[in-house]
């Protein structure tokens, strides 16, 4: 068995109403140290995790949304968003954050790794993963 696995973090929950979004993000941050091949999949209410403009100044809750923008620096290579989930919620790519990625060895750069995918692609991407974190 190779020591590099394809990790998929599956996010289906809205932020703030429950802690799942935030604590799942903590797994990704810690997981970066293990140098796996990491993707994120946002579907259902999980697409709300990537919507920009969160303001918790009147909630007395920690605003963890800016952390998503840094995931490229934590070794996350792809952040997929399910198209149908996004559309049902009246959202478009313009509503979502942009996350840049750079390979410091090859100097390969990607401006934005947030990518909208359709149902067939979602199914295929999840099937190709080796470990799914829920």
């Amino acid at each position, binding site marked *: 068995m190779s020591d590099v696995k394809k990790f998929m973090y599956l996010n289906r929950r809205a932020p*703030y*109403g*429950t*802690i799942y979004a935030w604590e799942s993000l903590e797994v990704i941050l810690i997981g970066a140290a293990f140098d796996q091949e990491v993707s994120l999949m946002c579907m259902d209410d999980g697409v709300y995790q990537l919507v920009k403009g969160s303001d918790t100044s009147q*909630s*007395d*809750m*920690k605003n963890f949304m800016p952390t998503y923008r840094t995931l490229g620096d934590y070794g996350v290579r792809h952040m997929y968003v399910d198209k149908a989930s996004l559309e049902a919620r009246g959202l478009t790519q313009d509503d979502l954050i942009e996350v840049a990625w750079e390979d410091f060895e090859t100097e390969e750069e990607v401006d934005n790794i947030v990518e909208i995918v359709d149902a067939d692609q979602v199914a295929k991407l999840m099937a190709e993963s080796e470990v799914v974190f829920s």
Partner: protein
Amino acid sequence: MKLAVQVNEGPYQHQASDSAYHFTKAALEKGHEVFRVFFYHDGVLNGTRLTTPPQDDRNIVNRWVELAEKYDLDLVLCVAAAQRRGLVDEGEAQRNGKDATNIAPKFRISGLGQLIEAAIQSDRLVVFGD
């Protein structure tokens, strides 16, 4: 207006405890009476003094304690729910042979009758949960 507040979820995991806190605080600041805040189901977990949340996050337990100190609030944890989930005061520790307690100050453990009584005595019952 006299209010009874019920909290069904633990701190951090669900926002219910946050909402209940902000609602209770707003009611008190408006001069309303809060007859009792009753913590049920996982809500009893709000009453532990052993939490250490991250420095840059809110301290949900301490917030309740401070509100209770300021307004002399009655914060009650349901005893049956507390026993299942390991919330213990001195009395419970003695009765059930536990070697430690974890209840926070200003909270007390009592029976479900306290919820029924609060619902009867208050003008409104407001429930926060999952």
